[in-house]
């Protein structure tokens, strides 16, 4: 029986060309042979050596390096290397600045009184931590069974507005999503990456004269 099954399967394979199995660098996402043109070569090298020593040998052994030179002149090659180092330093500095900015940015959860006993909660600054605001708004709306939307505030910055006083709950949700050790509860991974220490809970009372 197996003999009759086999030919059909090989025939199928013959007709549809299988895709090339690609392997990409885990640091810069380039194919490893192009890491040298990225801006994290030393990190890429380290990663490849640790994870896939055989490939490291293929791309960075002395023989490979010599073959790689190809038709380019020695001088141009050294210039290229110099540039790579420079680029790397630049990228590092950039990443560092981004990290610092992230550390400095605040998430503000504000409880706004609308009408004596009715509140809305606005959450500002989540986008600095790479949170998808639309998805997060949907998550909050679903979780609390209320309205939740992304709106532009007076300054033109997007913020999430959730109906009802849910500031403490939202704080807890974010905390839960970023707890160490646990992978975060199901569905909360949207909120990952936020620094809990940077969350501020504030309250805004409605002024009497602006009452409608």
């Amino acid at each position, binding site marked *: 029986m197996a003999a009759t099954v086999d030919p059909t399967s090989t025939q199928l394979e013959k007709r549809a060309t299988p895709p090339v199995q690609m392997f990409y660098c885990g640091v*810069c996402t380039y194919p490893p042979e192009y890491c040298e*043109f990225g801006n994290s070569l030393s990190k890429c090298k380290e990663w490849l050596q640790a994870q896939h020593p055989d490939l490291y040998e293929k791309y960075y052994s002395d023989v490979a390096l010599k073959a790689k030179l190809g038709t380019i002149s020695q001088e141009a090659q050294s210039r290229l290397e110099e540039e790579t180092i420079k680029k790397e330093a630049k990228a590092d500095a950039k990443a560092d600045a981004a990290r610092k900015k992230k550390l400095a940015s605040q998430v503000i959860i504000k409880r706004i009184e609308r009408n004596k006993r009715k509140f809305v909660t606005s959450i500002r600054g989540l986008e600095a931590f790479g949170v998808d605001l639309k998805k997060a708004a949907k998550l909050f709306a679903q979780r609390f069974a209320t309205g939740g939307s992304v709106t532009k505030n007076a300054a033109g910055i997007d913020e999430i507005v959730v109906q009802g006083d849910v500031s403490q709950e939202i704080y807890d949700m974010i905390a839960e999503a970023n707890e160490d050790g646990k992978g975060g509860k199901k569905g909360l991974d949207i909120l990952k990456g936020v620094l809990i220490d940077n969350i501020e809970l504030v309250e805004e009372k409605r002024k009497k004269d602006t009452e409608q």
Partner: protein
Amino acid sequence: MRTSPSHASQAFFTDRTQRWQVLLQHRGMFKKFQPSTDIVGQTPVKSSVQRGIRSTLLSSWKIDTETLEEIWPKKESIVHVKCRDHLSIYALHGEPLFFQGHDGPYLPTVRLLHKYPFILPHVRIDRGAIRFLLAGAHMMCPGLTSAGGWLPPADAALPAGTAVAFDAEGKEFAVGVGITKLGTEEMRAVNKGIAVESVTYVGDDLWALQKL
């Protein structure tokens, strides 16, 4: 919807490739592409339109029905991701497969090209040109005609306006996708100026867009 100002200007460009090239320059490809602001909307593609795309792909790419079936099974419906400047990305299960600028040719993403390298004709750039390509530059003639580069032989010459894959000297995988601006024979003869306009390459914003 289809009566945008650029539509009126089409009358100036009687030649299809010419128009396409102007558009290319205009939109700057995927060099500064921000998914959050540049994507207008996602819509499933009508099955009749899908049939049209399928037959266009089969005639314009060097691909057989079975392989295309593997990439894009008949039963699966692709999603049309509309972006600014009439740029369309087509995605299957959120993974971009190919794209089209205005009504130019369908071009595969570099990731798809890596899996199926044979779907486009190849040209090779020399080692010195790689870093320029990865910075988004168009490819000049000398980079292709020099010792490290490679152009198809005279009997397989490509006309201007053909979609090509960029290989790189000493590298295994393609590094980008471009559209020829000169015929390959012309490149040899002139050996000056832009030969192939790069459209997408490893490490650009389309490359970074792994999931839509």
